[in-house]
């Protein structure tokens, strides 16, 4: 219909650009699938029961695993979550409930900017604060670095989740005589819970697999270590050490570790999105960065 009146040259140009954009979008997806496929192919051959349950062994000794790294990752991320979740959620609540205040506006922007600060700089911060004064590396310092990485993400998703709660709900509660803290705890937080949980899961996914700050905080270990005050093994740190080593065996183990890491991160981020959709939230949960 309209097409009849548009000269063929312009139509052809439009067609070519559309094809180019389709090529870009599918190309990016194909590269992702190629990377994932490669990690799965190489990783599966390294996976075995002993890989998941044993300690690392010296070069040349076959076998050995990354069990202490997996446990270390869980411990470090766990402690980080305990530090970051309360701060992130409470600041997020403040930003949403008092969104008209100057402090809230500037903090919201600050959290956005802080979410992009290089993790290595945060690692240095954790080092000067919690490693250097005590003269030894520790899992706690790594957890602190992770917490600083997570807090801005939790703040922003909590703020967003509360901000999309319909205004009428809040007004109704206030009209019934509920004070600010009751409106927040009994109405806003209940309505915003799916969105907040999504944010927490995405924050966990963000730090799982983060390596840079660990180099001089958790430092790594060859043994079982459960004391958060001591250097601790961590999975992504083990992958890094194995990958840059010259040994074929260790490269294979690095792929195995990468597979575990990717599965963990994907499960976290897919679950974050699904839990959000299932419970009927709207408006946030897209990981644009």
């Amino acid at each position: 219909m309209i097409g009849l009146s548009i000269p063929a040259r312009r139509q052809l140009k439009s067609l070519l650009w559309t094809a180019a954009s389709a090529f870009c979008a599918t190309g990016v997806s194909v590269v992702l699938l190629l990377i994932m496929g490669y990690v799965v192919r190489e990783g599966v051959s390294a996976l075995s029961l002993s890989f998941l349950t044993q300690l690392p062994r010296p070069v040349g000794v076959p076998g050995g695993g990354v069990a202490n790294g997996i446990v270390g990752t869980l411990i470090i991320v766990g402690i980080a979550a305990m530090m970051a979740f309360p701060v992130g959620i409470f600041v997020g609540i403040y930003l949403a409930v008092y969104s008209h205040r100057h402090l809230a506006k500037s903090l919201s922007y600050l959290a956005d900017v802080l979410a992009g600060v290089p993790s290595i700089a945060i690692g240095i911060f954790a080092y000067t604060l919690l490693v250097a004064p005590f003269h030894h590396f520790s899992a706690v310092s790594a957890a602190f670095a992770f917490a600083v990485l997570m807090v801005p993400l939790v703040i922003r998703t909590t703020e967003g989740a509360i901000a999309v709660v319909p205004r009428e709900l809040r007004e109704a509660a206030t009209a019934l005589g509920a004070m600010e803290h009751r409106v927040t705890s009994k109405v806003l937080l209940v309505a915003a819970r799916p969105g907040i949980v999504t944010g927490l899961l995405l924050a966990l996914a963000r730090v799982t697999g983060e390596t840079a700050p660990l180099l001089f905080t958790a430092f790594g270990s060859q043994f079982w270590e459960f004391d958060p005050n001591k250097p601790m093994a961590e999975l992504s740190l083990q992958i890094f050490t194995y990958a840059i080593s010259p040994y074929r065996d260790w490269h294979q183990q690095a792929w195995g570790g990468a597979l575990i890491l990717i599965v963990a991160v994907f499960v976290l981020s897919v679950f974050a999105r699904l839990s959000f959709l299932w419970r009927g939230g709207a408006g946030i949960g897209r990981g644009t960065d």
Partner: protein
Amino acid sequence: MADQAIVGGKQSPAGYRPRSIRWPDRILSALFTGGLQGFCFLFLAVVGGLALELLWGSRLSLRAFGIGFLWSTEWNPVTQQFGAAPFIYGTVVSSTIALALAAGIGILAGVFLAEFAPRRLGIVLGMLIELLAAVPSIVYGLWGLFVLAPVVSGWIGPALQAAFGFLPIFQGTIYGVNMLTASLILTLMILPTITAITRDLIAAMPMRYREAALALGSTPWEMVSKVALPSVRRGIFGACMLAYGRALGETIAATMVIGNRPVISASLFAPGYTVASVIANEFTEATTNLYLSALIELGLILLIVSLMVIGIGRLMVRLFLR
């Protein structure tokens, strides 16, 4: 504002106080606000502490080398001479190439997802590209080191050299781990950011713009290039700044594929070094206080630059997406 007037009761006429609010509620309410503010100040303290700690940690280096630290090319722990130029060069060059590649591909991909893709395909591809953003950087590094690096030294490098060998950036021996490999890995890592934000920006454009352009007889591409993209160009600029900030600060993946040699070389086929990777590699080996201080100053430079770049980017994206 409105809810505060109701809750506080002070601004209502004739000092009216609602009877139903009992005193425990008043105390709780005050505690609630105060507590939340307390957490806000804790957060502010951490952010301030981050900047101050890095500044304090780099005082030795700041005193010893002054502003010349930024352009001195010597990095020699034996003679205790430290200069940041090779690292700044490597960081800026690898990130800028990555941004140039990722902006072209990412904007087009975002346009496709928002405008041209059939609905279901758009959703599937969009989710795939968002998953790309969730992949840990260590995995990109691993893939870059064992898969991409051989491809660069075996195919991409020789092909570029054959076609554009007269350019200084494509001359010399082709290493596997080099600036080009690092740029390509960074490109992959920042693509999702640009694609996803471009898609969201264009999808948020009012439908009537689209309809007006098409009704005036433009082709779908003309609608995109003359209406959609110009109307969100500042948002897209912001997305590119966010991506640039991420590329500048990327540590592990760059460390694994850039070659880690502190020299400034015109050729993209030669190894380089970035600010973040020298910190990652040498921090635990820094034997003297001055050495450590120089590394912390590198961290400070990285922090300041990325705060500025991301600050601008966030401002631009915020203006358009909220």
